[in-house]
């Protein structure tokens, strides 16, 4: 517990932790000190001068150091002769702050008058209008009129694209520097800067490509005026026209808490439509931030994708529309015939309620539950995952974090943020990866290994001799993240086992703030494991032998031509999806599902926090929610499943799945006062992250906490790969061409246009390839045309292949890469 300090603000005593600023302490005392440049997540700079207050300190006798007292025994307070900026003044014992004096009121008027002299005051056409701190504070504290004549007004450019996503209005910028500091301090991509001086100070971007950061959208939130707007929302809607729906981002396993702002959309025939994505405060998960992928692609696929609108059945070799009844009866009959020959292939994009029903139905028929993924280890995250009440914000001095085989910012941006913040608070960060990644800047120990030799790293860590191994073993709390860098099913399974062994043998398992985190490829992979879905080693082989295959929220045929071929072997194929995917085109029956923005449910994130999302827009005519489709199907197969509501579905699930035992939606809805207090209800923070009134979610107990005996697994055998020549290794990049992001026009300019690979300069030389060359990548019987990008950070002898960017690769394999001689 940090030291507490008591001070008096406008006659009210407050006690807050030492190190707090007067601005934040005042919020606790319910005294409002207006700010522009200050933001509690950023270093204070004292630039705008809006927060000027009177500051007094108890006077001390110079000789004795004793506090001087008035006649009545109260300490004598000496006030600074000048007003002080409350945002750069830190609380001190006995400090006295006055904010209601004439002098302070005058100062606020003065500063606002100054700010408005250079402001265009084009509120009626400004996106921030209606939720603008400058408007609010002017109303609350400003002068009613201005003495600044219009002829002196400085006119500046109104549309300066800072990049593909963000547009700057130079006239509106009040030079608070929040955006610049956000990029430098939080995102650690210092790509914005102030340029020029005096009144001619401008925000500029210094990177190429411009504003090159996965975090750029956040600057538009914290910009206290309408100077920064997103290309997504610019001139789209007024804040007061929209209503809100709480949700979760479904694009990575972080599960950022978001808010959809919704309004009827003329371009969509007057339908209710999402206008923008805003972060929703959850200090356990995403704090008040989201990455650009979430902000600019979280809903587009549902809103703009070519959706299935009705069930389809195959007749004479062709799919034709059918009624739900007909379609479901066809499926029921096929499933009945297949019996234990049924395989349900589902992905972690589905909600827990959907997956639970799917699992029950599959079990009922004696079928097999298969998870569509390339990353294993979910049993181990269940057994020794982060304990109950875990909070990444609690990690610091004395704790340790191991990040293994993960380019964390690319795979789960917010985890990158949380881990680096823990390291900044003093946690020992160990990073094991074959090539440098952004998180490594904060690493105390870097363990470099060769792709495919993950086992060696673990051998050393489990032997406990190295400095890094000892730092991990000795730590008070130990969190291990493993991810997607070069791992396949077999290796990730071994990594998870080895990590579990380390946690169990060092006494960390089962403690809150310690445990194993898998950086899953899908947002609800953890939930899918919890509901009993498991990947299979050879999916093609499995698919070839099924009697009936039920593919839900997955597209094996689209993912891999070998799987497409394997599907030929399935006697009966049912696809349940939003879109007519490659797999759906091969199906016997296609069932249209609702998108997550059209219904509710829960997802379990990679920290094993169960969180709820809510319906945001009315579903289109036709599609049904997955859990309800499964329940309807089950009814035809004499099984009673919950199909009425996700609340009921969750109750049923909580009654059966051990980790979820006893949980209810009510538990998930628990909220608490979250620091910093940046709620939109405060005038200064309107237009930023939404407060969280819908629930912070619950971290599931791990098996150790549930009282199960969890013995340390044997040190695993890592698969050994014998190969010669060039090794292609799959890695994950945030901006890929996955089906969900592909529908976002906004993000499109940031997404890769063509397949590309990374190679080291020496490898490129050996292969006779130049940077930017077009090459032919041969993987087994498949060949691709790829753009070669030479990258000195890549180890020699490998070709790094981003997943979902046009090349199919699930496991490291030997390949050929050859220059393509352009036809002359």
């Amino acid at each position, binding site marked *: 517990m940090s030291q507490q300090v008591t001070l008096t603000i406008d006659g009210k005593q407050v006690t807050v932790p030492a190190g707090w600023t007067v601005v934040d302490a005042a919020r606790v005392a319910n005294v409002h000190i207006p700010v522009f440049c200050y933001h509690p997540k950023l270093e204070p700079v004292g630039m705008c*001068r809006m927060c000027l207050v009177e500051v007094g300190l108890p006077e001390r006798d110079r000789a004795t150091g004793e506090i001087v007292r008035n006649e009545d025994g109260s300490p004598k307070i000496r006030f600074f002769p000048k007003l002080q*900026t409350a945002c750069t003044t830190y609380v001190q014992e006995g400090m006295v702050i006055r904010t209601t004096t004439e002098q302070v009121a005058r100062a606020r008027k003065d500063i606002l*008058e*100054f700010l408005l*002299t*250079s402001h265009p005051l084009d509120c009626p056409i400004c996106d921030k209008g209606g939720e603008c701190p400058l408007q609010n504070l002017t109303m609350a504290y400003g002068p009613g009129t201005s003495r600044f004549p219009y002829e002196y007004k400085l006119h500046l450019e109104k549309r300066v694209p800072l990049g593909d996503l963000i547009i700057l209005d130079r006239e509106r910028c009040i030079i608070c520097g929040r955006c610049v500091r956000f990029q430098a301090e939080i995102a650690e991509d210092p790509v914005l800067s*102030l340029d020029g*001086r*005096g*009144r001619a100070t401008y925000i500029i971007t210094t990177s190429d490509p411009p504003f090159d950061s996965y975090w750029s959208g956040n600057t538009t939130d914290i910009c206290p005026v309408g100077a920064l707007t997103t290309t997504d929302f610019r001139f789209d809607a007024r804040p007061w026209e929209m209503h809100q729906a709480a949700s979760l981002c479904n694009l990575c396993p972080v599960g950022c808490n978001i808010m959809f702002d919704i309004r009827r959309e003329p371009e969509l025939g007057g339908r209710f439509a999402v206008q923008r994505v805003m972060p929703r405060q959850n200090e356990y998960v995403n704090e008040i931030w989201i990455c650009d992928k979430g902000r600019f692609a979280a809903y587009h696929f549902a809103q703009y994708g070519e959706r299935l609108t009705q069930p389809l059945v195959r007749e004479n070799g062709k799919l034709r529309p059918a009624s739900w009844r007909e379609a479901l009866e066809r499926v029921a009959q096929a499933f009945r015939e297949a019996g234990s020959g049924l395989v349900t292939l589902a992905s972690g994009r589905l909600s827990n309620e959907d997956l639970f029903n799917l699992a029950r139905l599959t079990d009922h028929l004696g079928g097999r539950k298969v998870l569509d993924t390339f990353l294993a280890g979910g049993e181990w995250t269940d057994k020794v995952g982060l304990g109950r009440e875990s909070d990444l914000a609690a990690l610091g001095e004395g704790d340790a974090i191991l990040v293994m085989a993960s380019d964390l910012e690319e795979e789960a941006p917010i985890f990158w943020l949380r881990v680096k913040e823990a390291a900044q608070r003093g946690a020992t960060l160990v990073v094991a990866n074959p090539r440098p990644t952004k998180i490594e800047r904060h690493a105390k120990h870097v363990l470099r290994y060769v792709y495919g030799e993950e086992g060696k790293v673990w051998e050393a860590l489990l032997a406990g001799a190295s400095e890094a191994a000892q730092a991990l073993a000795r730590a008070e709390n130990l969190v291990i993240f493993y991810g997607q860098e070069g791992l396949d099913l077999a290796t990730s399974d071994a990594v998870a086992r080895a990590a579990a062994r380390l946690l169990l043998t060092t006494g960390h398992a089962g403690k809150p703030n310690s445990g194993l985190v898998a950086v899953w490829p899908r947002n609800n992979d953890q939930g899918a494991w919890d509901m009993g879905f498991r990947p299979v080693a050879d999916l093609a082989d499995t698919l070839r032998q099924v009697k009936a295959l039920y593919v839900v929220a997955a597209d094996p045929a689209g993912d891999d031509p070998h799987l497409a071929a394997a599907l030929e072997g399935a006697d009966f194929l049912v696809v349940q999806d939003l879109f007519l995917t490659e797999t759906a085109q091969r199906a016997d029956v296609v069932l249209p599902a609702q998108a997550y923005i059209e219904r509710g449910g829960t997802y379990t994130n990679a920290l094993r926090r169960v969180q709820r999302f809510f319906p945001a827009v009315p579903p289109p005519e036709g599609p049904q929610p997955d859990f309800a489709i499964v329940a309807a199907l089950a009814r035809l197969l004499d099984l009673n499943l919950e199909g009425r509501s996700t609340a009921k579905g969750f109750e049923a699930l909580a009654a059966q799945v051990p980790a979820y035992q006893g949980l209810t939606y009510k538990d998930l809805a628990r909220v608490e006062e979250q620091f910093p207090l940046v709620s939109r209800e405060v005038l200064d923070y309107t237009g930023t992250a939404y407060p969280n009134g819908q629930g912070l979610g619950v971290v599931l107990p791990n098996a150790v906490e549930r009282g199960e005996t969890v013995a340390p697994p044997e040190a695993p055998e890592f698969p050994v790969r014998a190969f010669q020549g060039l090794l292609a290794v799959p890695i994950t990049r945030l901006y890929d061409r996955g089906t969900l992001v592909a529908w976002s026009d906004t993000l499109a300019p940031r997404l890769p246009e063509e397949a590309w690979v990374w190679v080291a300069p020496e490898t490129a030389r050996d292969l006779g390839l130049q940077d930017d060359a077009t090459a032919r990548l041969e993987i087994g019987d498949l060949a691709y045309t790829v753009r070669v990008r030479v990258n000195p950070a890549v180890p020699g002898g490998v070709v790094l292949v981003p997943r979902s960017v046009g090349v199919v690769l699930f496991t490291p394999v030997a390949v050929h890469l050859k220059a393509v001689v352009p036809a002359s």
Partner: protein
Amino acid sequence: MPEKHLLLRHRDIPDIHELEVYRKHGGFEAFRKAVTQMTPDEVTEEVKKSGLRGRGGAGFPTGLKWSFMDKKNWPHYVVANADESEPGTFKDREIMERNPFQFLEGVAIAAYAVQANRAYIYLRGEFWQVAAWLDRKIAEMEAAGLLGDNLFGTDYSLRIYTHLGAGAYICGEETALLESLEGKRGQPRIRPPFPPSYGLYGKPTVVNNVETLTNVPLIIERGGDWYRTIGTEKSTGPKVFSLSGHVNRPGNYELPLGTTFRELIFEHGGGIPGGRAIKAILPAGASSAILPATDEVLDTPMDYESVPKVGSFLGSASVIVVDETVDIVWLVKKTLHFFHHESCGKCTPCREGTYWMDHLIQTIAEGRATPQDLEILYDVAKQIQGKTLCALGDFATMAVVSGMERFREDFEAKVREAVMAGG
């Protein structure tokens, strides 16, 4: 013959910029004495005892500043402020060009006192020739074993580097200077923390003006008590006054602190050209509150206590003399143009206020203003005062407020012009 100069010694001793000549006149003996015979704290104590106050403008006690260095945080740095950008100030340049070793010895002693092994000299960009010259002098010191490792056979080591700024007035402000030295935008930092606890690269740092440091060898050589015999009780020592404007003999004059304006302007400076009358004085360059040249003002001793009593500051003692032909509106316009141009833009009142004031004074000077414009100009200046992040904002208001209060008639004449023109 009594020495005429203690700081501008080149005026008495030819070729003192040659290392040999400087050493022949006792050069670097003070540094040797400090390093070999005194503890760092003893050096600081001696400087404290001397009463030396910063010559960069604020007049802060130098020894006290050194004693604030955080001894729990290392390394320490010393930075010499050679930005010399106050209009009307040209003393540091003369010292560095003509008596460079005394300045460099001062840097070295300061570094020893705070146990810094690196010292930087930050010069305004226009001083590139001075920087090259100092680099040569530093190289000579290194060659002579006066800089480098194991100085005078002790384990103390020191290196001095020069660094050129890009030419902004604000980079003379110590925290903006440090930012610039770190390679960032030259904008002031919020203080506290002050440089002795959080300075260059976040490490404890002493920032001192060139002239301040040039005093230090004398103090170590002859003792703080001797030093106190020069100047006044609270403003001790000699001071180089940069005299400019309407005087017959402009230039630098080294005189004890406490010399009167009258003596400087009329005895040393030779009075006003053409026998015209003196109208006003800016004692601290463009940042000054303008003083009317009354007898009371002329007889005021130029020291850190007396000048404020008549309504201005001594600052860096760049005394600009203005004769009766000058319209104060024109003068204020010049200062506002300067401050509008030099405002770094970091804080609202200075950024917006200097822009606004500059427009207002142009309107006034062009004879287009209403009486209300005068009121607004005065209000805006007052509105800036006390609210800015660094002192530049306040500096920008000095000439305006003092000019309007003390030379009201000049402003009113302009408004009358406007009224006439408007019919």
